[in-house]
């Protein structure tokens, strides 16, 4: 199997991110929640990336924050894709009333800006990571639903789906064996995008105080904490911003590669 260079870069970077997320507690040079220096120290031998607004080690917070950011975003994206594509396929295959009800519920949810729904829900529900993941996953699933339904609509009219229905197959086979494999390419492409949106969404929520709660770190929250330093010429806020950008690029490089492999109709054997 040949891996193109762009995918290799993406795989290596994503691997580093995942590795550091899994082993965050072992990799952190300092505690992420305690001041270990003065405010906004520049990079040095003791603090490789400097310290933040209250003197905590940025590298340690970046590693811990990465763990939380990636975990929450990944869990929320997987949830939204599982829900969204299942209901989307179901709506496309069933048609009629099922489709109407599912689509109108989805429209209803999309009619209200998701940030506002999230704010309302999170201010009522207990604030922990599980609730955060659930709220984000459910809200994002509306977008996936629409994509999955549109893609599946095109596939559901193909003769091989008709042949499966005429064989007497139940909807489970039709959805998971006939439609899902053919809808995978656009969904994988969308996953790369949605994952990064989820990262940004956590950051937004954290910025508003309803996301990841201090002293836990997440990258968006770190940008917020250190943003005032920018006007003093201090680059502490740019480090987590760069991390978000790097994660976005590497995940999408991998997604592109997976896409090109899944779009091959010869089982990727060429």
């Amino acid at each position, binding site marked *: 199997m040949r891996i193109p260079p762009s995918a290799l870069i993406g795989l290596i970077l994503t691997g580093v991110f995942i590795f550091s997320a899994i082993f965050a507690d072992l990799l952190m040079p300092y505690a992420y929640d305690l001041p270990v220096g003065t405010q906004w120290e520049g990079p040095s031998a003791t603090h490789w990336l400097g310290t933040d607004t209250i003197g905590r080690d940025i590298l340690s917070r970046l590693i811990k924050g990465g763990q939380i950011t990636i975990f929450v975003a990944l869990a929320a994206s997987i949830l939204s894709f599982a829900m969204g594509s299942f209901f989307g396929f179901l709506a496309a295959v069933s048609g009629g009333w099922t489709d109407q009800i599912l689509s109108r519920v989805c429209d209803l949810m999309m009619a209200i800006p998701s940030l506002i729904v999230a704010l309302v829900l999170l201010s009522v529900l207990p604030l922990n990571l599980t609730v955060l993941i659930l709220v984000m996953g459910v809200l994002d699933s509306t977008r996936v639903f629409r994509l999955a339904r549109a893609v599946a609509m095109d596939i559901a009219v*193909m003769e091989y789906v008709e042949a499966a229905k005429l064989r*007497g197959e139940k909807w489970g086979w039709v959805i998971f064996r006939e439609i899902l494999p053919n809808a995978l390419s656009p969904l994988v492409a969308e996953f790369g995008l949605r994952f990064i949106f989820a990262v940004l969404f956590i950051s937004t929520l954290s910025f508003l105080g309803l996301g990841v709660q201090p002293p836990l770190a997440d990258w968006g929250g770190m940008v917020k904490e250190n943003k005032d330093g920018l006007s003093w010429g201090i680059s502490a806020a740019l480090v987590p911003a760069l991390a978000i950008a790097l994660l976005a690029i590497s995940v999408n490089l991998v997604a592109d590669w997976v896409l090109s492999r899944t779009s091959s109709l010869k089982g990727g054997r060429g």
Partner: protein
Amino acid sequence: MTSEKPLLEIRGLVIEATSYPPGEAPKNVTLVHGVDVTLQKGRVLGLIGESGAGKSTIGLSSMAYGRGGVRLTGGEILLNGREIREARPATLRQIRGREVTYVSQSAAASFNPSKRLMDQVIETSLSHKIMSKPEAEARAVMLFRKLGLPSPETIGSRYPHQVSGGQLQRVMTAMALCPKPDLVIFDEPTTALDVTTQIDVLAAIKEAIQDTGVAALYITHDLAVVAQVADEIMVLRHGKKVELGTTDQIINRPAEDYTKALVSVRGIEHDEKPEAPPLLRIDCVSARYAGTTFDVLKNISIGLPAGQTLAVVGESGSGKSTLARAITGLLPPTKGRIHFDGRQLSADFAGRSRDDLRQIQMIYQMADTAMNPRQTVGTIIGRPLEFYFGLKGSARDKRVQELLDQIEMGRGFADRYPAELSGGQKQRVCIARALAAKPKLIICDEVTSALDPLVADGILKLLLELQAETQMAYLFITHDLATVRAIADKIAVMYKGEVRRYGQKSDVLAPPFDDYTDLLLSSVPEMRLGWLEEVIAHRKANGTTSGNTV
């Protein structure tokens, strides 16, 4: 003739393209390997071959055009003695539309839907400043008349959607002839048309070629069609010349094996089986699509005995495929009953038992869309075995291999994906999928019409052998009467949602005919010289111009 310089001379033409297999490095493929073509003024050369033979590519190269990233990499193309293969775009613009024009397969897709026909027909003549607008319009009307279009004076003011497909194809021919070109490329101009329409268009094109004295390259996969219009025929295969000769030589005395096979195609003979009690009985079935008030099937009553073949014939829009949908239960009839194997079938397929569904299998026209591209051949054929008979694991694999052997495909196909198969192999896999269910009836919906003639022949032979082995009944939907002759026991001729003629093959194909069946039967191109003239003369004598049905 030999002293005269040829209009078109192609020497050692090499055409290449780059293919981009997903997930792999791009690679170069050679489409045409050193082909020579010589065409004198006023002559018609037929280019014939199966899909992928390079006939369209060669045709287009005579105006130095390569479609879809195709590159003309070697050889010489001399048009009117001038080398044009490496000519500059400005020079080519002068040639295209002035010296060479093009008639494509799908006229419907080639016209601008928002401009009137006349404006499009004379556009080239005006943009090349060949004639003034009144002159061009007069010439266009003259051509419309010559091509037998109704109300030639006014048809030009219509829009493309206001004329039929056959008329549009003739308007396109007028468009190509209007700027008085030296050479016209006809690229499968009648392939997309119904057989009854094809004959009129063919006759019109032939007459127009003769009257205007233009030279033509006539590209088609149908030898019987090209035999009617061409002076010479070049048989192509895999981008190489197989044989070149006069039409008479190619049709009557082919030298190469491949040409012989092409000429003798549809040589299948099948003796009609005697009348028997029906396995499938359709009583007074009418059907319409949801939200419409128009019956697409009107009081259809036909029957099909076990182990026999009923051919349903008709042109597009006659309701043949809708009949199949009504039988399978995809489109529940509004009226009438369908009996199968002695009991009445539920109108909707959702109300049928698993065994009822198993007994009626379907094979589709486009094998490409009838198979899930993400499933291996093994899964495609194996699923009905698992679903209907509960076969699993090695028992299933063994049966899959038996079925693959039955459709004459060897080992190693079970792990392949549909994209790794040829067109004929795909259709065979679809047949195997239907066989796997051990049905009593298989509905074949235009199963051979997307295939090259030789491949289609193989599929028909296979179907006949399988019928002899397993005593399955076929409901064979087709527009191709040659296929019907080859395999049917009974025939139903459909026209506008009604069955016009129905009975044993020998009765249906024997006179006296009703008008429509006569028109249909006489429109099937026969592979001999002068057939077209005979039919046209016969129709003129009988006063039955088919123009009103177009």
